């Protein structure tokens, strides 16, 4: 039976009081799914992830995690309840070593979690004593993913994981996302590289001006001429 692990109902949120970026967004992420959120710049995609993670306040609507109302739960608490979040920028601690970065995310304090992350990203083990601030863009993204994964989340929110990366690094990141999903983690991705993201997604949502514009299966969105023309651009 399909079980929603994350659900947003009529979520309205924004950065400034009285000025919502999201205006009643509905979204469901089922157990084991990869779901993409796509849309033009300023549609509110990243804002939605921040509202879910408790970084900005939800002004209206509700957000449920595993069926429980978690609207406006403080960020650090929601992370302890099985949510992992990788922001687009500022997603590593530059003055800490790679190992310490992972340690910061390892709230359960188990060594086993380290070995799982090191198996997925061997580079993090090789350079574990180095300062994270010295890493390249792709390596930072791996570290950020590792930091989020080390707490063994059930749900992972990824904000533009391929932004600013070289083509090779983008391949690596998407490969990692598929691998992570295979371990049973449900994933919600916001991505400018919409085609690439939809290719690995079960379903997708199109947001426009803070509202749901369309939702459907990933492959259906990719094959919908109107959506392709409006939001993805002709190949």
């Amino acid at each position: 039976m399909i079980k929603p692990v994350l659900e947003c109902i009529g979520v309205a949120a924004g950065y400034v009081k009285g000025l919502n970026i999201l205006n009643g967004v509905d979204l469901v992420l089922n157990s084991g799914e990869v779901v993409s959120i796509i849309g033009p710049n300023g549609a509110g995609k990243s804002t939605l992830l921040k509202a879910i993670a408790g970084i900005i306040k939800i002004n209206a609507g509700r957000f449920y995690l595993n069926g429980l109302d978690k609207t406006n739960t403080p960020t650090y608490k929601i992370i302890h309840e099985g949510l992992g979040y990788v922001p687009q920028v500022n997603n590593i601690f530059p003055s800490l070593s790679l190992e310490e970065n992972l340690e910061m995310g390892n709230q359960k304090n188990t060594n086993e979690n380290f070995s799982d992350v090191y198996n997925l990203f061997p580079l993090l083990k090789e350079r574990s004593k180095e300062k994270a601030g010295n890493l390249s863009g792709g390596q930072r993204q791996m570290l950020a993913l590792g930091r989020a994964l080390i707490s063994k989340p059930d749900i992972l929110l990824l904000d533009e994981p391929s932004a600013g990366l070289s083509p090779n690094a983008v391949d690596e990141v998407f490969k990692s996302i598929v691998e992570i999903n295979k371990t049973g983690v449900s994933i919600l991705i916001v991505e400018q590289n919409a085609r690439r993201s939809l290719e690995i997604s079960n379903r997708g949502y199109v947001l426009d001006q803070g509202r749901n514009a369309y939702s459907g299966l990933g492959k259906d969105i990719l094959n919908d001429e109107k959506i392709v023309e409006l939001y993805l651009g002709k190949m």
Partner: protein
Amino acid sequence: MLDQLGNGLLLGIIISVASVALSLLYGVTRIVNFAHGEIIALGAIMASFFSNLPTSRYIFLENTSPLGLSFEISLFLSILICGLFGAVLELFVFRPLRRNEFGNIAVLVITIGISIFLRHLYLIFASSKPQNYPLDLQRREQYFIFDLTPRNAKIIVYGILIMVLFGLFISLTKIGKQMRAVRDSTELANISGINSDRIILYTWILSSMLAGTAGIFQGMINDVRWNMGFLILLLVFAGTVLGGIGTSFGAMIGGFVIGIVVQVSVALPFMEGHTEAKNAIALAIMILILLVRPQGIFGKKERIS
């Protein structure tokens, strides 16, 4: 010159401890705390209140006698009170300001207000008369090349020990690492599951305890005055900025350099008869270094994203 080097070492240790505290607080909270000097003074004044004998010539609040506790217990209680005071400042002033997203300038002005308020509260509580701790007079002795009293030599050893322990705490313990994580990014720390409010509270407590300790050291080598924190604050800022604001190790070294330069400059030939201007030399050196290295000696320019 060697006499002054010993005194410089002593002042350097005091400024170093106070600078580390200021730098830690700034690094984690981004607050430029002008009330830091008053927390330094709080440690010194409370130690005087606890340790001086009830029969001494010092009177607090015009009719209250000091408590006459042992000096060791007085130190412990004073440092504890400084920590509690830091917690009160965070819980009742700075956390509400943070929740209401007050700007940095507004917060800075508030710290200046707290500084002025506290300083005058100390004037009422401790009077304007300089006070001394009930410690015996000691003769200077030779320690390597330094000419110091045994007590002052102990202050140097304890100061170095405190900074070594602080360095180990910040590098190796879970809370220390979390403080460094919050210093890098409060938002990312929260996203990692760290309760950044709790870490900021611990930072206020630790920073205030270190500041209070520096105040007690200052009281032990000179005297205790209501405005002693304000008088040393500029040098503490200089040490912090010189080492690289936000870096604890930099603040340690910066504070040390400033202290030594201030004292040694007294022995310079052109300073004869102008010892009151000794701070000017240290501040001029700070400006020169910052012109060449704006991030301070140990400050780093790092990629943020």
